[in-house]
């Protein structure tokens, strides 16, 4: 097992590389979900405004 983690002496480069890659993988998932959630919130707010009656536009 320790041999596995030592990776033939390359551990100090190999594990950071894996760490970086999977950090990016996870981050992308989190980011994507968060942008979707934010877009939904904004859309909801817009819909609320839209439901109000049209106030202006009358010529006097």
């Amino acid at each position, binding site marked *: 097992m320790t041999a596995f983690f030592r990776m033939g002496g390359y551990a100090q480069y190999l594990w950071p590389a894996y760490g970086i890659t999977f950090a990016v993988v996870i981050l992308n998932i989190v980011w994507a979900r968060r942008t979707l959630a934010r877009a939904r919130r*904004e859309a909801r*707010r*817009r819909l609320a*405004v839209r439901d109000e009656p049209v106030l*202006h536009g009358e*010529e006097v």
Partner: protein
Amino acid sequence: MSELSLRGENLHLWRGERHVLRGLGLEVAAGEVLQVTGANGAGKTTLLRALCGMLYLEEGRIVWNGVNVRDDMPAFHGALTYLGHEPPLKADLTASENLRYWVGLRRRLEPARIASALESVGVPGVASELVRTLSAGQKRRVALAALPLLSVPLWLLDEPTTNLDTEGQKLVGSLIERHIRAGGLAVAAVHHEIFVSPQHLRRLELSKS
């Protein structure tokens, strides 16, 4: 069809999260000026910029002489001039150079016409002074001098009387009056009275959303 006309139909526009124009309709014909009024933040600037195609309309269309302007933007732009909150003058050019380069993009101009235009807006002395050294009202007058020189039919004016003294505010009225009498049309956002004869004037009041 030979009559000039500008029509906005069902205009919808958001700025950021605000639904500023909500189904607005308007119409101006040759010989008319449409005064847009409304409280600060009601959307006057937004409307004017949308009319000249600088803001994207979510819905609705703008019709110039019966043609949707999206179909021929350059022709529409060639027929209008827009004057915004800030006069589009180069601080390091003189007043007459500014007019020469600004108007010269669209019309051949004799220098004499520039001089007489500056005189007609009450700043005959500034022709060869750098715009950097002019007072706020003098700058505004130089920008106004460009309007008749451009000789385009449609004027979109956003608070053209800013920084002007009372005499200057009358001047704006008479500039517009002369323009629409010659068959032009104008949309102007002005808070106070515009000095034009009432039969030419129409009003559009924007209310704050």
